């Protein structure tokens, strides 16, 4: 019995450094690059699942319960799953509003903020489009927010976090240039999406999203909407359907068979596809996916 208890408690003693729970893999990777060896990140959601629908599995309660801080995306992306975890975990360090809680959406400018909100318009995000991390320039802004957050809760390692951020941002800026030149000839392309989760990416690189396969946010495709979309595609000649990895591509494939439009899988996060293992590879992939 004692042995069992010891075994159960062992992981705690090993984690002498800060244990930071984050909602999505991209936040984990970014936090890890800035926190380095002084922190340990625990990612709650899986990268290949719909970020709107994460199962609040009890194992996640244990992760939140044992966290020293919590960083979330915000913008209501986690509304359906994170509140019960925070509530169940009863950890004062992960309560909304505590000094060890960071809502990243408060640090970037959200686009597509609806003038009025009504669910007859689908499952809209009242605070604006929350998929802001898919603009790689925002990653730097988020990095600053995370750096300042880490410093505020662990001022002892201020110099380390600042140095790590400098290194990261130097590397990232170089990449930004590369991605920009890669995407330069895509400026002005028209695209179709399943759900408008690439809004920030499209905005940065001048892609125009002319339609979504779902008729309204969160509403599954309907045949009438699909027929209209096929007409639209025939008229407007968009380059491709940029499709997320978590919805079935059935409707997209059907549209493709009717119009000849390409279906391009666009990972939204680290782990969305097997070879997406880091923030860099995520954007490497995204910027070379459209051919």
């Amino acid at each position: 019995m004692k042995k069992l208890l010891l075994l159960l408690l062992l992981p705690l003693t090993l984690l002498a450094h800060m244990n930071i729970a984050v909602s999505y893999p991209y936040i984990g990777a970014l936090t890890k690059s800035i926190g380095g060896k002084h922190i340990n990140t625990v990612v709650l959601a899986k990268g290949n699942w719909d970020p709107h629908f994460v199962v609040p599995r009890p194992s996640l309660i244990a992760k939140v319960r044992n966290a020293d801080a919590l960083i979330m995306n915000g913008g209501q992306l986690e509304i359906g799953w994170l509140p019960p975890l925070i509530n169940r975990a009863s950890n004062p360090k992960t309560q909304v509003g505590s000094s060890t809680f960071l809502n990243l959406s408060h640090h970037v400018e959200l686009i597509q903020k609806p003038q009025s909100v009504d669910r007859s318009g689908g499952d809209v995000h009242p605070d604006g489009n929350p998929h802001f991390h898919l603009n790689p320039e925002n990653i730097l802004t988020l990095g600053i927010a995370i750096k300042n957050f880490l410093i505020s809760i662990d001022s002892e390692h201020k110099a380390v976090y600042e140095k790590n951020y400098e290194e990261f941002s130097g590397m990232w800026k170089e990449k930004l240039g590369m991605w920009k030149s890669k995407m330069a000839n895509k400026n002005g392309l028209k695209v179709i999406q399943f759900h408008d989760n690439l809004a920030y990416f499209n905005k940065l690189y001048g892609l125009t999203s002319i339609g979504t396969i779902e008729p309204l946010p969160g509403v599954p495709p309907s045949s009438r909407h699909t027929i209209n979309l096929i007409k639209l595609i025939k008229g407007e000649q968009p380059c491709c359907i940029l499709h997320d990895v978590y919805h079935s591509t059935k409707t997209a494939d059907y549209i493709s068979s009717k119009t000849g439009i390409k279906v391009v899988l666009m990972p939204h996060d680290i782990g969305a596809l097997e070879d997406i293992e880091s923030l860099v590879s995520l954007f490497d992939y995204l910027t070379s996916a459209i051919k």
Partner: protein
Amino acid sequence: MKKLLSLSLVVSSLLMADTDMDQLKEQMNKQQLIIEKLMQKIEKLETTSNVTKPVINIDKEEVSQNTQKNDLPAKSKTFSQSSFMPDISLIADMSYVSRNKKNDVVEHLEVPGVAHGLLGSHTHDGNTHTPYNAKQGFNLNYAELSLSKSVDPSLNLNGIFHFSEDSVEIEELYFTTTGLGYGSRVKGGKFNSNFGYLNEQHHHYWSFADMPLVYESFLGMHGINENGIQFQWTAPTSTYLMIGAEVLQGNNEQMFGNSYIGSAESPTAASENAPSLYVGYVKTSFDIDDTTIFAGLSYAQGSSRVDHSSDDENPHAFVGDSSLYGIDLTIKHYFDSYSFLTWQSEILSRDMDGKQYNFDASGSVASSPDLIKQQSGLYSQLVYAPNKSWQMGVRYDSIFKNDVISNGVNQNKPSHLNKYSAMLEYHTSEFARLRLQYNKNNALYNEAGDKRSIETIILQANISIGAHGAHSF
């Protein structure tokens, strides 16, 4: 600004006091026009200052300063507290029911030795007790109004109110602590006990329109829903392990109670000290890839008063002590974000030990044999969701042990009582579901002791508006 304008209007009209009426009126009209124009200008300015958000590409402190600067004029001008509004949601549940037996037949059926009046509404102590989907035809089961919000940095408050056609009930009203730390949480007020798996969940979260047979016949349609206090502790382990204890008032119509039976002056059975119900449980969960396994052991112990002394037929009452044991196991496998297969099962077992008082027509005790009830039942259900819009499932219910021992003699009550259910659900969105359910209930007997198989078809609509109802596992 507006005040200043109206003030200037008053002052100017005073100054014009000696000019003649027509001139004055003309002046007034002019002034009014000017004011209106100015007002429009103000409104325009106000809205634009609200709309232009700063471009936030800088760090934390600067952001908060900017937002403060921007929000200040709008916010300081009123006492508006709308941003403190709690999260509100309203859930409506309604159904169309078709049965192979009429309402008045169904109302008199019982699960022998376990419970009576499970289906159909019946009056008990002057209260009409209407289970969900009670009547043939259309049923308005409830409107559930739910309010919740942080009270302050250390407390949350939740209120859940059940409106039915003839009553309003406080279904739950409780505070929870948020700042205790060490994985501990205290909940106080009226709430659904965390006994077992299903008990804490609200009706609209269940996968079937009705409660499992064993829950409904042992604990009634509300389960263990009590006033009291709960303490839960989550262990600091990487595997989820939660231990909880509850002290509850102990008023459950079917199983627990502490009030006297009979008249207040010379009761047949005296009252017990309250609170009189104690609940404890251990729950654990872990994942194997995309499969989550969740298991729990629960125990409830309390004094019992089951009062049917004012029933028309066979008035009786049970007085004693009862224990309830629960084992639950849920295995949920996720194929992707929307598609899953869940196998959920619970075994409940109870031990009731005391005296049964049988009353005669005049209300005096005719006999009072020692009574022991040892009963066990289970439900096991399988639910498959191929996508976001559809779910389908089957459930098997059984009461497989039914020993009722009166003065040492087993009453040989029927012990293979079961029920079969199947359902198909369509979700128009996360916020609305339509469910078609079929039940075949083989657990009900009439007063003559003959089995009456009941077949029911329920078409249920469960629809919600307002705050996003995030649910725990």
